[in-house]
């Protein structure tokens, strides 16, 4: 199923919020092979979220190229990037992943609609949520009424519903206690493994590193580039 060389391929990427400011992020080269599960750690404010925004195509680098699944995000327009994200990338935030006023089902459906997948059906949603250990009755409840742990699992369900090739998670466990956290990690990684989905998981909590194939610090990632020059 993987007909691309790299899930992620960054070349000479730099990003600054304003043109004249010094770049907040600079990565000379970073490649991730398909199906890998990467743990990226770094202190808060080190640019982790910015990097994820760049990979998901919400921000555009000031210079350099970002290829996701062999698609160069810097060469396609904003609308195309949004479509690409909807279809191929699942995003999970720290918290507040869901629109609190919509039901769980409507939240997941929203991703299906933005992903423009007409083949998806309700069975798929309930099957997925069940696999993630969520009770069927939860689907009709408002997302805002769920516990944080439940919300995060629904967020996983929403990230997975369009069978993305890449999952980006930004500190998704930081608001969970240790039991729900372990459960969350298990559910996320098992589901990802099913489709050999590439996972980029960002956290400052190094104790989670053992779940992953590879641990990288953002600091090293940026340094590595520097040293090569």
């Amino acid at each position, binding site marked *: 199923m993987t007909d691309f060389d790299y899930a992620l391929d960054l070349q000479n990427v730099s990003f600054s919020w304003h043109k004249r400011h010094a770049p907040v992020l600079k990565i000379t080269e970073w490649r991730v092979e398909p199906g890998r599960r990467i743990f990226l750690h770094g202190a808060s404010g080190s640019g982790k*979220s*910015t990097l*994820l*925004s*760049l990979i*998901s195509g*919400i*921000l555009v680098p000031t210079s350099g190229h970002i290829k996701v699944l062999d698609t160069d995000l810097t060469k396609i327009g*904003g*609308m195309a990037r*949004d*479509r690409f*994200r*909807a*279809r191929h990338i699942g*995003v999970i*935030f*720290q918290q*507040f*992943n*869901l*629109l*609190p*006023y*919509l039901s769980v089902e*409507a939240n997941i459906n*929203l*991703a299906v*609609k*933005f*992903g423009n997948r007409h083949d998806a059906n309700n069975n798929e949603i309930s099957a997925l949520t069940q696999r993630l250990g969520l009770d069927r009755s939860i689907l009709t409840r408002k997302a805002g009424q769920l516990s944080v742990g439940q919300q995060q699992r629904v967020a996983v369900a*929403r990230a997975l519903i369009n069978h993305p090739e890449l999952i980006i998670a*930004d500190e998704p466990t930081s608001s969970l206690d240790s039991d729900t956290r372990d459960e969350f990690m298990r559910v996320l990684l098992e589901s990802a493994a099913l489709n050999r989905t590439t996972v980029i998981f960002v956290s400052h909590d190094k104790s989670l590193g053992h779940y992953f194939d590879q641990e990288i610090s953002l600091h090293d990632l940026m340094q590595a580039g520097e040293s090569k020059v």
Partner: protein
Amino acid sequence: MMLKLAIASLWNRKLTVTLTVLSIAVGVFLLLGVEHIRSEAKNSFSKTVSGVDLIVGARTGPLNLLLYSVFHIGNASNNISWQSYREFSQKPEVAWSIPISLGDSHKGYRVVGTSRDFFEHFHYGQKQNLAFKSGRAFDGVYEAVVGAQVAKTLDYQPGQSITLAHGIAKVGFSKHDDKPFIVTGILAPTGTPVDQAVYVSLAGIEAIHIDWQGGVHIPGRSIGAEDALKHDLTPKSITAFMVGLNSKISLFSLQREINNYRDEALVGIMPGITLMELWQMIGALENILQLISILVLFATLMGLSTMLLASMKEREREMAVLRAIGAHAGSLFFLIEIEALVVTVTGILVGSTALCIALLTARTELSEQYGLFIGINPFTPLTFQYLLGILAVSFVLALLPSVSAYRNSLGSGLVVRT
């Protein structure tokens, strides 16, 4: 999908949204209300009298004469003599004339002393004749014809006995209860002040005042209803008269003759021209009212824009979530615009409904107190133009929060920075 999302999001903010909807409803109510009453009043006034070439009364302002003789608003300052009426009504160029004698009332409705010519020659609307819904015109001295609204409100049928009161207060304290009248006919509805009046013969007016002098009953001198008939019941004076001419050519010369009449100070007016003067006077006021209602509506739409803009800060996370699952920045722009339009449309619906209810409720009051006949349907092609205009203004004003949503979603990343 965006519409459903917009509605769900608005529902999530029920309280502020409801208040905004209500304020827009008030603005719409005001604008459409003013517009409706404005056009309906004009319509109602101009269709009240038709085919009357001149109205003649004691010298006074033309407007005053028109208002009291046709609309039954206000009072005559003076009467004119029967002689003068006789002289002018018998002129060769005069085709018909209708004498009018005012000053009495029945349960708050004006009593008009007139002749049978009234039923034959008075026209309203597009030269429509008066018609009887039941019964016939008065014939005898103590017979009366009532307007449609009078009959409906007081539930009168031909044969009903009524007493007239002196003066026009709703609660008349001096009654002509010694000389009751019999209702002989009920007029069909006209949508004009004709519906709000009781018509009797001039002789009837004369008869009930035969033992009165200077507006009070002469003590110790009572003349019974039967005895009164033995007296000469030719009136000594009337309030005004309407004239229809054989040919319009003589209109101005007759008017000049009336205005220059030596024996008595008279004035003759052309109802159409006086109505136009009235509109010119009211026009300025109307424009101010309209301007105020437009400004009020504009302010409420600004309020809508403010409400949306203020909510943008707390909705940054909502926007970030939508972006993360693949919404375009443009979709967020449209989301906010759709929200603005949903609120505006709801406001328009609430405001229009309230207006219809208000018109339905106030209709009787307006027609009875002010002689204004207002339709209950405020929707005209013009109204729809107004409503489209409101939507357009709402769209333009909502550009501010919408563009802000668009730009924020482009300028910031996945995570909401606080």
